[in-house]
């Protein structure tokens, strides 16, 4: 039977340390995180994969904050209905945030949890940082 790396396997791990990926303000006030690979993760995962994750996150946030016809239309419609329309529907931003949450969950299950890492959704940290929790590596001999 193939061994699945499910999260239930990681029963009560100890947190070894936390890495915080800060915001990158070089493009202004838009939400963007630094893609530089932290040195603490060098022993745990690929630089490539990490950068890909961060780049996708940045693209998703850019999509949320994008100024275009659709967002202007939504803004105008909301203004005309005295913002009551948001009682029935979600804003575009909120829709994208849900997408991001799903993506992070996905990434955690597929890539990070098997390596004893955990990505925290930045929205839970007020969009300040991407928090990566490094757990103690107990399963050294499990052939990961």
């Amino acid at each position, binding site marked *: 039977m193939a061994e699945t790396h499910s*999260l239930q396997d*990681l*029963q*009560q*791990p*100890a*947190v070894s340390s*936390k890495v*915080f990926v*800060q*915001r990158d*303000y*070089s*493009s*202004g*006030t838009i939400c963007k995180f630094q893609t530089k690979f932290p040195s603490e993760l060098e022993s745990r995962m690929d630089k490539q994969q990490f950068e890909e994750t961060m780049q996708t996150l940045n693209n998703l946030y850019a999509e*949320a*904050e*994008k*100024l275009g016809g659709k*967002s*202007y239309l*939504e*803004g*105008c419609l*909301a*203004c005309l209905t*005295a*913002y009551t329309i948001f009682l029935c529907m979600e*804003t*575009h*931003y*909120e829709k994208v*945030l849900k997408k991001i*949450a799903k993506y*992070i*969950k996905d990434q*955690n*299950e597929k890539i990070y*949890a098997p390596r004893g890492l*955990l*990505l*925290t*959704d930045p*929205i*839970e*940290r*007020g*969009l*300040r*940082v991407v*928090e990566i*929790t490094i*757990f103690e590596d107990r399963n050294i001999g499990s052939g990961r």
Partner: protein
Amino acid sequence: MGVHEVLMCWNIKLQLLAFLLVYQNSAFLLMLCCCSFFIICFYFTSCPFLAQQLTPIIPVLGGALFLFVLGTLLRTSFSDPGVLPRATPDEAADLERQIDVANGTKGYRPPPRTKEVVINGQTVKLKYCFTCKIFRPPRASHCSLCDNCVERFDHHCPWVGNCVGRRNYRFFYMFILSLSFLTIFIFAFVITHIILSSYQKGFLTALKESPVVVCFFSVWSIVGLSGFHTYLISSNQTTNEDIKGSWSSKRGKDNYNPYSSGNIFTNCCVALCGPLPPSLIDRRGFIEADAPQMAPPTNGITMYGATQSQQSHMCDQDQCIQSTKFVLQAATTPLLQQHSSEPVIITSSPENGTSLPARASLTLGGPCSSLPLGQPTPPTSTPSLSCHEATDMLPIHGHALNHTHPLQEQAALHHYLTPEEVPSPPGMLHCGSPLGHSHTVQTSFYNPASQDSLHEDSVRGLVKLSSV
């Protein structure tokens, strides 16, 4: 934790009451009263005459405009301006470590921390906020009245009783724009009334019956303010930046606004019709007061992660309770009641270790014995206060020691303040202990002598308000 976090965590009735009464937003209440007064005056004096002489649409239009003004005012006052939640202790520790490494200094307080970043060709300095323990994003600022960092900080408006920032700037603008239309509308029709009735009664009599003088001054001030904000929107600047002259050409030949798109129309669209980001503080996972069980872990995280998020949820809830208690106390009790009681130590939890080196003491006992309180406990744990069903017997941590805002509000100066210039609002604490913006000195926050009356009255306040 700032004003907004306290307000967000309780039910709506309590929030509104707390906002109106507790924070003593006298300017906001004055604004509400003035608007209502004017419209009532207008309705009683000029409207009957105008409805007869001209058309009954006039009072209807006036009423509709007034309702719109009220709607935008309330929306501006009660929405989150874009508060940046404070950094978690882990983040703060990580940042401190990075800064220490960069500065090469340890121990004594290092010089003000700044980070430089180049945005669109302009060098922008990011400052470190000692209260919120973050490097502020560009255009964010710390409001000393609300004790929060606010994104795209414009100004703290006392008339609205709230900061004006990224999330509520458009409502604020709509408020002042519609208010200027309303004042011009009222002014115009009051003049019409005077002119028309002066044919019948004579000019002076007509003048005496109308509130024209007051109208006149308010028209010019509101219209002026609207004009100023229209200019700011079209050049994509904040009031804060304009006052400081951050992007003024006087500072240097190459100084320009890196956020402006160059096109007035685009700037207006961005400010008024751009996407509205959700509130960052709603997401901190506040649990409802009547559901003390832990919020479910997200992202399918491990048990440890779940425990951690549970702890942080608990802490947020406790902070909330503690802050609200003090907030209510500030409104309901005269402080400076000298009682001597046995001190009880409340310690900071390990997570908050970096910011609370000192232990504060709270007194419980004496007058509080009538309330079903937990016994004073040894230093490592906190007393549980089962004072009111809404608090649901949650233990109180010492986190709220950090937060000075409820008492700051009492003596807050109600005028346009550029942030950062008032590190310690004057005369804040009635119990006589000076309190600076620095969060490291917390022993003075709790005056042992007044804590028992503080406690008792805050509890009474909670009980009273929850029954509203």
